């Protein structure tokens, strides 16, 4: 550890710790640019869209696999592609991502093999990709517990003098957990280079936002930690990308953490096991259908001449190929060795685990390793 306290940007002023009155929106409902500056680079906008198309198709395929019982469960990202992909693309390869069970599409956008992404949901292991190679933590199920991990990692990196940033995804429901509070507070006190992105998809399983908070917005929690706040239209990929990029780069420069709330909607059931008709209306879902993040970005790109039918068709074809490949690979039964269970409890199995492994091996008619 060779850290010296680097002179960084000044701590935020009180007004920066409160979100704006309206969410940041750079594309209007029809996809027209309504931002003040210039839009992000054209190639990037197209790439964002391409990954959203891939993500959407991946999600559709995974949802189908969930329904068919090929996955133990699948929590869909449908409707949240702008949040997940916009945020992920704001990260450098060296930055770290801390996703939840909800964020499979972010992982695909991060470049992780979709088949590996689904390992957890398939049930063959708890995490299927290399955490180190992708600098992406395992998808986290216990709500909000990933937040302190992201904070600790970024703090350690800063102590090491490495200029990386961590980003944790969290849901609207997850913000009610104590771990969220403790992570935000640690991050703000130690000015940790980290970003909290709340995907406010309006529900925690069946529980609507109004039963989760009485705050004006979730972004209003930032000032209670002394952290910068931002509120963003979560179905506007450019707004998410731009806002997260700003926060990430400020964190990298030593400006401390930011809490971003992205307003979006979970179009599908909570998971393949859920029945949303019990707690929300078709009308509400219909309203949000009209705000589709892919449609919005597509309209923008077409109007700007950045997307033509041929490119769109190519994206669709690529997405279909991805889905088909995934489907095929899912058909192969997983090659699992029950004896591997004993290999990863400790660096070396305890004598007790060796005994248990031998017993299992015997039951399986095999010799323990």
């Amino acid at each position, binding site marked *: 550890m060779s850290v010296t306290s680097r002179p960084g940007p000044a701590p935020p002023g009180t007004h920066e710790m409160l979100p704006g009155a309206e969410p940041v929106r750079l594309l209007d409902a029809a996809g027209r640019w309504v931002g003040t500056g210039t839009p992000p680079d054209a190639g990037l906008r197209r790439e964002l869209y391409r990954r959203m198309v891939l993500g959407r198709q991946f999600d559709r395929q995974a949802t189908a696999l969930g329904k068919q019982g090929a996955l*133990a469960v699948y929590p869909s990202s449908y409707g949240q592609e702008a949040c997940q992909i916009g945020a992920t693309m704001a990260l450098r390869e060296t930055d770290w991502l801390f996703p939840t069970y909800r964020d499979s599409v972010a992982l695909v956008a991060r470049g992780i093999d979709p088949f590996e992404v689904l390992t957890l949901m398939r049930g063959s292991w*708890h995490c299927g990709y290399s955490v180190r190679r992708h600098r992406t933590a395992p998808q986290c*199920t216990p709500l909000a517990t990933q937040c302190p991990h992201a904070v600790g990692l970024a703090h350690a990196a800063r102590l090491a003098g490495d200029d990386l940033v961590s980003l944790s995804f969290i849901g609207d429901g997850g913000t009610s957990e104590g771990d969220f509070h403790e992570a935000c507070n640690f991050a703000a006190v130690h000015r940790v280079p980290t970003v909290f992105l709340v995907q406010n998809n309006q529900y925690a399983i069946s529980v609507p936002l109004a039963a989760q908070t009485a705050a004006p917005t979730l972004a209003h929690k930032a000032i209670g930690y002394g952290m910068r706040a931002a509120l963003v239209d979560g179905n506007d990929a450019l707004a998410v990308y731009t806002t997260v990029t700003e926060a990430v780069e400020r964190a990298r420069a030593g400006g401390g953490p930011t809490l971003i709330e992205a307003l979006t909607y979970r179009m599908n059931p909570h998971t393949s096991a859920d029945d949303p008709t019990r707690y929300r209306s078709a009308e509400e879902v219909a309203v949000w259908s009209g705000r589709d993040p892919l449609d919005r970005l597509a309209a923008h790109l077409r109007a700007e001449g950045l997307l033509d039918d041929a490119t769109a068709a190519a994206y669709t074809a690529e997405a279909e190929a991805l889905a088909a490949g995934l489907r095929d690979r899912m058909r192969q039964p997983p090659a699992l060795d029950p004896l591997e269970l*004993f290999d990863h409890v400790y660096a070396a199995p305890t004598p007790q*685990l060796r005994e248990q492994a031998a017993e299992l091996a015997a039951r399986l008619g095999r010799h323990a390793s």
Partner: protein
Amino acid sequence: MTPQLAMAQALNAALSDAMREDDRVLVYGEDVGPLGGVFRVTDGLAAAFGPQRCFDAPLAEAGIAGTAVGMAMYGLRPVIEMQFDAFAYPAFEQVVSHIAKLRNRTRGELTLPLVIRIPYGGGIGAVEHHSDASEAYYVHTPGLHVVAPATAQDAYSLLRAAIASDDPVVFLEPKRLYRHKGEVARERPAEPLGRAAVRRPGTSATLIAYGPAVPVALAAAEAAADTEGWDLEVVDLRTLVPFDDETVTASVRRTGRAVVVHEAAGFAGFGAEIAARVSQRCFHHLEAPVLRVTGLDLPYPPPLLEQHHLPDVPRVLEAVAALQWPETGSTS
């Protein structure tokens, strides 16, 4: 005729009957309101009793457990749900440092009639964190009662008893039995907690189990009777705390052999207590060491491997076979 109910329905009936009979009973947690709980155990309660008696709290288990303490202090009888074993851990401090201790702290002035319902254990093919078996943490915490039903009738009766208790009860509901049906008599008076049941009388050896391990033990006993000629007694503990030493000890003294079966990891699991007590109390009656058939000492495996972790009939029979039978009976 006594109706057949799935265990989840029996639990629902218990909640609904308790709420009807006593307006101090209220139910809250995560998704227990309009959704009726992820396992539908609270189905219809919000509609029937209104949003004050059955509601969704903000998503925060320590907050849920902690507010329940305050409600119980004021005379309500809260029944709170933790969505899965692993999601009760955030409430651990409230459970251990307050719920278990408030009566003691106040020399009995404050009672704490509070039930913590936890969908318990694995075997349902669920991803990580949805299959933990956490009873060892609670049974070691003085001040808590711990209950684990294995039948629909017990689910009903023991939940009624738990709600009627003036002490806090951790109520472990075996997830994989939620859809198992059985006769449920709702008019039966609530029994006191703390009585084990002999589910199958037998003479050769005693299988001691609770919750989801009971059907496994019963199936093993049937299989043993069919194929090995062993007549196994099956004791269903029903209540882990208070522990029914009398029933357990009497059985093992009679049979002289015992196997404990549970789903949680074996090391320092509740089976250790059972084995230790039985070994001590039945010392001169034991023909063989008390054996344990339990989950492996691992973090709960991914669902596609869980069958290797969970006790099953062959493993129980293997343990029974290892109970040092006299030569004559060793082959069949």
